[in-house]
């Protein structure tokens, strides 16, 4: 291969962009050709000088504290979403509340009596069911073992499309009233369950399974999961967030 041909490839060679065969040809030629070797040396120095200079720029900026307060400055200029306008449900709730205030003096005693009756019936039923329906609270530091019937109904944002997320799935059981053609939907990493969706099964072979409360409603748990960095200890463990 002649020098003109090689010199056309020197930059790609230096940038590791040549296929292996072509790269070997350049290496062999440069080992024997002083002219091409000198040209390669110049290109290499140029790259080194430019890179080192701008590395020095960044180091000097850090050393001089230029990045102190950088985040605070960015944060102060961020456009955060405004409080949403009251939706139709909020307005409906306000109407219901106003109606309740007008009729509560009659309804409260009636509802109290009905509530006592419901509690008595509920206690009777729960005593006759198995241990999984005891209503235990999941405390921090517990370990999730993925049994479907241990997971309660919950609400959360919509299931989002998978963007190539890796391992870990959950099957969501959506109410039949929604006429969902896929009542059981597999949800990979990062997904959060939809309103009134109950997770029937989950399994992850690495990452966090986080069961947390929907911030809009503390009584409605949400399931998300994300991947964590390498665990140096290599052991499975449970930890509270």
């Amino acid at each position: 291969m002649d020098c003109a041909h090689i010199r056309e490839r020197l930059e790609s060679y230096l940038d590791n962009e040549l296929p292996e065969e072509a790269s070997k040809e350049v290496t062999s030629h440069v080992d024997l050709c002083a002219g091409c070797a000198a040209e390669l040396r110049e290109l290499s120095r140029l790259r080194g000088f430019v890179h080192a200079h701008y590395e020095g720029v960044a180091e000097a900026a850090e050393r001089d504290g230029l990045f102190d307060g950088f985040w605070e400055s960015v944060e102060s200029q961020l456009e955060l979403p405004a409080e949403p306008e009251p939706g139709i449900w909020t307005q409906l709730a306000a109407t219901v509340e106003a109606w309740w205030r007008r009729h509560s003096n009659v309804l409260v005693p009636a509802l109290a009596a009905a509530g006592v009756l419901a509690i008595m019936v509920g206690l009777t039923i729960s005593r006759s069911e198995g241990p999984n329906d005891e209503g235990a609270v999941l405390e921090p530091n517990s370990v999730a073992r993925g049994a479907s019937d241990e997971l309660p109904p919950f609400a959360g944002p919509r299931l989002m499309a998978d963007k190539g997320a890796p391992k870990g799935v959950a099957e969501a059981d959506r109410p039949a009233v929604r006429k969902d053609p896929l009542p059981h939907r597999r949800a990979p990493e990062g997904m959060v369950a939809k309103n009134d969706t109950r997770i029937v099964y989950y399994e992850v072979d690495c990452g966090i399974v986080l069961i947390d409360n929907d911030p809009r409603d503390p009584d409605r748990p949400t399931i998300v999961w994300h991947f964590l960095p390498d665990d140096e200890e290599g052991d499975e463990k449970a930890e509270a967030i």
Partner: protein
Amino acid sequence: MNTRGGAYVYHCRLERGLERDDTILVERSQRGDQAAFRQLVERYQRKVYSLAYGMVHNPEDSLELAQEVFIKVHRYLGNFQGSSSFYTWLYRITMNVCIDFLRKERKGQAAVDYDDQRGHHEEVNQGEFPLVSSVATETPERVQSRRELGERIEAAMATLSEKHREVIVLREIEGLSYSDIAEALGIKKGTVMSRLHHARQNLQEELRPYLQGTETAGGGDEAQAGG
């Protein structure tokens, strides 16, 4: 059963890749997690600053432009679909912000021909140049040599047109591959190679005495390898 105010985790070993971390942080940021967005900012602030400096050669302007980049990233993060990697998308925004800045600056100055003609030396910031070496025992002569080299590099970069400066900055400062540069700038890979070649030729002409060793860089004849 309810998770009343608590959360628990199932945690195991995982191989960590920066790109996967970016994906996780981006998704959290898209859901309004400000702490996740802050992590993205802190991860990339120095890189974005370096790129901006490579384009505009002024520390104060570079810092402001870097902040502007992240404000735009936050504003348009909802549009980021993940079809490209986050960092190439970030670098595209960075280049666009810098180009806009340079064009606004030019409007206030006499028209300058940026056809990479030799001898076009734009006024360069003559303030304190960062010293490339961190060796504490450098001689004053070496310090001066490095300072001169820094001035020459910035003067040479200033002779490049914006489109040639872009590719050099992304290649030599960030070490991006040709494909990544093409993706970041929205151009073809062949165009990247052509512009890099043109830019390097011009820089070689401007810096030849240093490259051939007739002028010293203060750190020996062999420059440190770049990305």
